[in-house]
């Protein structure tokens, strides 16, 4: 795994379990415009937090969804995409993903397949939006077929961080998807984790009568 970033797992990510917080991650090759898109959406209002030791930038954003205040953390890479792979903690507890390619560079489109594969290893279920960025450079690309999205059943947005086309829509929709995923989440990975924890406790019960009560209590907490 990439160098110098293992400490990323020390970041407190339990907060993403609370109702009013979501985590949205950005993926894609170097220079496709991930950071420019973030900046265009947040305009002057953004407070990026450079976590250089983790090679990532966090952008915090507050909004309301269905009358409820929501705090969104956008995770943007800061160079780690170079290794064509992100640390598992980058994916951990993410509720939605924005996956970007550059319409001027075919290779970034081809690489979507790798990014998507890695995403699904860690987050098999979360909503993911495919983003064709830099359409200002050549409007004709909006008539081109990008079958990757269709094939994977993912929405495709044509955007430009430069002139702003569809940027705000993209982020607002990503937040909505993240929220609805969170509310209806039955994430496979998390389920497996829970099962495993229960399983260990049940075994404990068998091995020691004295600990029986404690174990039962613990078990109910977990459910």
């Amino acid at each position, binding site marked *: 795994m990439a160098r110098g970033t293992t400490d990323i797992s020390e970041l407190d990510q339990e907060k993403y379990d609370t109702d009013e917080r979501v985590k949205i991650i950005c993926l894609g*090759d*170097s220079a496709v415009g991930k950071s*420019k898109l973030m900046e265009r959406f947040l305009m002057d209002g953004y407070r990026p937090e450079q976590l250089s030791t983790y090679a990532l930038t966090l952008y915090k954003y507050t909004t309301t969804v269905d009358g409820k205040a929501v705090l969104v953390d956008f995770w943007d890479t800061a160079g780690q995409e*170079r290794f064509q792979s992100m640390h598992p903690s980058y994916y951990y507890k993410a509720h939605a993903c924005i996956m970007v390619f550059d319409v001027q*560079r075919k290779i970034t489109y081809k690489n979507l397949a790798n990014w998507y594969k890695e995403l699904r290893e860690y987050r098999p279920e979360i909503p993911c939006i495919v983003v064709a960025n830099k359409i*200002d450079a050549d409007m004709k690309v909006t008539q081109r077929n990008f079958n990757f999205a269709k094939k994977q059943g993912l929405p495709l947005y*044509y955007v430009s961080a430069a002139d702003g*086309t569809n940027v705000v*829509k993209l982020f607002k929709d990503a937040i909505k998807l993240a929220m609805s995923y969170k509310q209806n989440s039955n994430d496979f990975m998390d389920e497996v984790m829970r099962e495993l924890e229960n399983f260990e406790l049940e075994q404990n019960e068998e091995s020691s009568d004295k600990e029986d009560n404690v174990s039962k209590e613990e078990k109910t907490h977990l459910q």
Partner: protein
Amino acid sequence: MAFVAKRCGVKFDPPSIVLVYEDGKTKKMRQRIMPVRNFSKCSDCSQAAERLKNNARHSAYLQGVSLQQLERLHAVLRDHLRGRTLEQSLASLRLDPDQDLNKLSDEELARRKAQMDVLFERNRKHKDDPDFVYNLEVEFPEVDDREAGSWDESEEGF
């Protein structure tokens, strides 16, 4: 504008940026040579470009020259100091759409991004532009236009 920039270039000895411009009053074409001082093969091109752009003696002439362009010219000068040929230097400045930018060093990547910035700035809508719209939504109806070409070809597994 008093001076209208027409073309830019470099001179290697001594390292200088050259500007061809039109004098707004006389309508004559003129050439201005601006030596680049305190510049070595380790210098930061974007800092050097900024220094030149804000230079008291030159800034009036450089109004119409973007910071990115000055940065690229400095990159050519620095490449020369590093012993690269002009051809090599220009090739590295040209954008190759097939190049995998994931494989570049920080510095090379920054250079590519500076090149991309030229178009980005040209197409950029600023918040104080009169026609700026924060939430600009445009629908692109799905069309099956074979002539627009596809990036999917018949490659397997994609």
